């Protein structure tokens, strides 16, 4: 039943937030990371901060969603705690969704702090707040499902961290966080458009600065939704395959 599945997702999410995400060291990291990021870039380029803000928010989202989530899933697989969830009357799809939401909530906290700093300190103004909110949620869900895919594909916690970095760092350099995608060489542009963060950064920038039309933002939102569906479906298959 759908209600039972939704309840199951909610309880697993609450358990994960309590047992892993909202532990004092993670909270302090979650606050420090965007602060340090903002401070480092404001010292480097005090005048162009509003221009950089969409990239910084996207970067906070990348690290916020994937860092803890990959650890949580691989850790639970290793200790057998994930098996306990698989024994419960809830589908694998819902278990995975609860894990993705865990990463999403933590990513929301970190990118939310980065957004607040950008508004309060850099005087950033969001031109289309509704579109901005939608893009942030889609970005977090997509990146979190990427984190889940990485985590269900490996066995050890360190492997999850290493594999995550194969996606995180190229995304930060190729997806328009620091350098506009259009100014990169053609082959790198092709790679950039295969990565979800490109669509996030483009949409965040246009919704914050008001530089783009609705069609463009909608296209980015659809692209992010497709990435989310693809990552979560493959993760689901991967987790199911491990039960064979």
């Amino acid at each position: 039943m759908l209600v039972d599945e939704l309840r199951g997702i909610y309880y697993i999410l609450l358990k994960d937030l309590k047992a892993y995400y909202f532990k004092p060291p993670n909270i302090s990291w979650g606050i420090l990371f965007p602060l340090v990021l903002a401070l480092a870039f404001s010292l480097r380029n005090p005048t162009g901060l509003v221009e950089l803000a969409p990239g910084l928010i996207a970067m906070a989202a990348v690290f916020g969603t994937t860092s803890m989530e990959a650890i949580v899933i691989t850790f639970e697989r290793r200790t057998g705690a994930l098996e306990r969830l698989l024994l419960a009357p809830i589908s694998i799809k819902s278990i995975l969704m609860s894990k993705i939401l865990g990463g999403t909530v933590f990513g929301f906290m970190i990118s939310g702090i980065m957004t607040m700093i950008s508004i309060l300190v850099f005087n950033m103004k969001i031109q289309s707040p509704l579109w901005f909110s939608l893009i942030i949620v889609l970005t977090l869900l997509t990146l979190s499902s990427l984190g889940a895919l990485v985590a269900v594909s490996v066995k050890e916690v360190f492997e999850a961290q290493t594999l995550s970095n194969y996606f995180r760092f190229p995304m930060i350099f190729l997806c328009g966080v620091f350098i506009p995608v259009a100014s990169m060489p053609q082959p790198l542009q092709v790679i950039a458009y295969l990565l979800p963060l490109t669509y996030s950064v483009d949409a965040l920038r246009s919704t914050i600065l008001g530089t783009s039309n609705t069609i463009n933002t909608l296209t980015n939102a659809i692209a992010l939704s497709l990435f989310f569906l693809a990552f979560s479906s493959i993760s689901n298959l991967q987790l199911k395959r491990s039960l064979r």
Partner: protein
Amino acid sequence: MNDAIVLQGLTKYYGSLLAVDHASLNIEEGEVFGFLGPNGAGKTTTIRMLVGLTTPSEGTASVAGYDIKKNLVEVKRRVGVVPETSNLYDELSVWDNLLFSSCLYHVPRNERADRIRGLLETFNLKERQSTKFGKLSKGLKRRVVIAAALVHRPRIVFMDEPTSGLDVVSALSLRRLVRELRREDTTVFLTTHYIEEADQLSDRVAIIVEGKIVVVDTPENIKQSFRGVPILEACLSQVPDESMMHEMEPVGIVEFKGNRVRFEAENLTEALESLIRLASQRGIQVTDVNTLQPSLEEAFVGLTGVSPESMKIEKERRR
């Protein structure tokens, strides 16, 4: 009586390795069923298939009347599982772990606290309810894991080596609990390497060897089928001389230990008459006579060729 668990040709391959070979069984509602076998025989794989942790390669099974392939969520609602490893959440307290299990298994909100309190009482965990699971000893962790499996009052409980790692008192209280579950008509599917435990608790046992179920019967019947030449042990009022032993040899194999005489004989009546006659000729009285039953452990060794002791050592080594 309805069947709680039915296996029909259930088979599992891991690559080319045949872990469970066409297992077929019927377990009745309210039955305590012992599933025995050497390490690696396929006990845990069978449980994992029945509770949906791994998919069967061939065959079918139903648990609580639901097909494990078609209605797995319905199966999961009705079963409780005590896995071999204590896999609750280290960062959560004992109370929070039990609360999480009760939420996940849809225990009504207004019943959760009472049920948890009841289980804490049963497993003598009340003092530890606020302690984080990760800080508990191995035995206490085991108790919490068992409590978590029972929080939704399942109709069928799978217990994979439940007393492994438990101290004597906890193991005794668990055995008491299994008997209580049986009284409440809960079906218990139990794997253990403590053969004596299976003998005491189980209505029936199955012995699985290299993935194949070799026998399914009551412990008594299995023991009877392993009864070879009857063994009789007698206690005498005095230690007899050696000549008595030689005179008794024609009736069977005789062993003297102090004032005890143990003999294996095809014809127990003849042997007993001979013993009484020879003893009274020497002014010795026969004070006690017992026939010795083969144990389930002996039957297990006979069927599997593995001693339970070596199984325990291997199990501990793997932990």
